[in-house]
């Protein structure tokens, strides 16, 4: 079962985990990304492309389900303003096989970084700046091409 959520609400990982577990598989893998306070970041704002974002995440989850035998794939991405320590993104997979759950989870977060229309703006010392895309993210995403 695929679940996609893009919302300004805080991410409830316990609830997401519980839903993945009830999908009846023996193995659940998750990844949670948190706002980092490095370099004096005070707030982070996430802008997205409504409609296209949900569509991109849905396609990404479908492609994971096509590559691995998954019972469930969940992607939750927060948008709007948040502060260091808060959750930005949660990705979870459930499968009968632990390798499938673990690999699909890594795939989803790697590809999400390059394939979904989100943009981060950090505020440091009261000044806002758009975060630049990192070459390493594109490299991580390409390792799944085959």
């Amino acid at each position: 079962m695929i679940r996609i959520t893009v919302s300004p609400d805080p991410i409830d990982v316990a609830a997401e985990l519980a839903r993945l577990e009830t999908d009846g598989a023996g193995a659940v893998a998750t990844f949670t990304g948190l706002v980092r306070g490095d370099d004096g970041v005070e707030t982070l704002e996430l802008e997205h492309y409504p409609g296209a974002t949900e569509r991109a995440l849905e396609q990404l989850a479908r492609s994971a389900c096509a590559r691995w035998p998954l019972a469930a794939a969940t992607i939750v991405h927060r948008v709007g303003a948040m502060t260091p320590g808060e959750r930005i993104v949660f990705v979870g997979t459930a499968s009968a096989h632990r390798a499938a759950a673990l690999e699909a989870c890594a795939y989803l977060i790697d590809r999400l970084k390059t394939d979904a229309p989100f943009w981060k703006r950090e505020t440091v010392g009261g000044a806002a700046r758009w975060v630049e895309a990192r070459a390493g993210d594109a490299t991580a995403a390409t390792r799944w091409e085959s």
Partner: protein
Amino acid sequence: MRILYFAWVRERVGVAEEEVTPPADVADVAALIDWLATRSDGHRAAFADPARLRAAVDQAFVALDAPVAGAREVAIFPPVTGG
């Protein structure tokens, strides 16, 4: 044709979206961007470095040489930084 802008592209252009009717010889996204750049100083500043721009046509990511004929919605934005 509806044009959407995101992140610093939106800020430089000065609007989040606009309705435009490009001339018939605007065939691909790159040509559309060149044509849009003439609309204001903000547009010109936003599109100064096409290597930093990405696009979607009707909500699907495309390369800048993708055709725009028949498109209802074109989005122009910087490389994505989510997750």
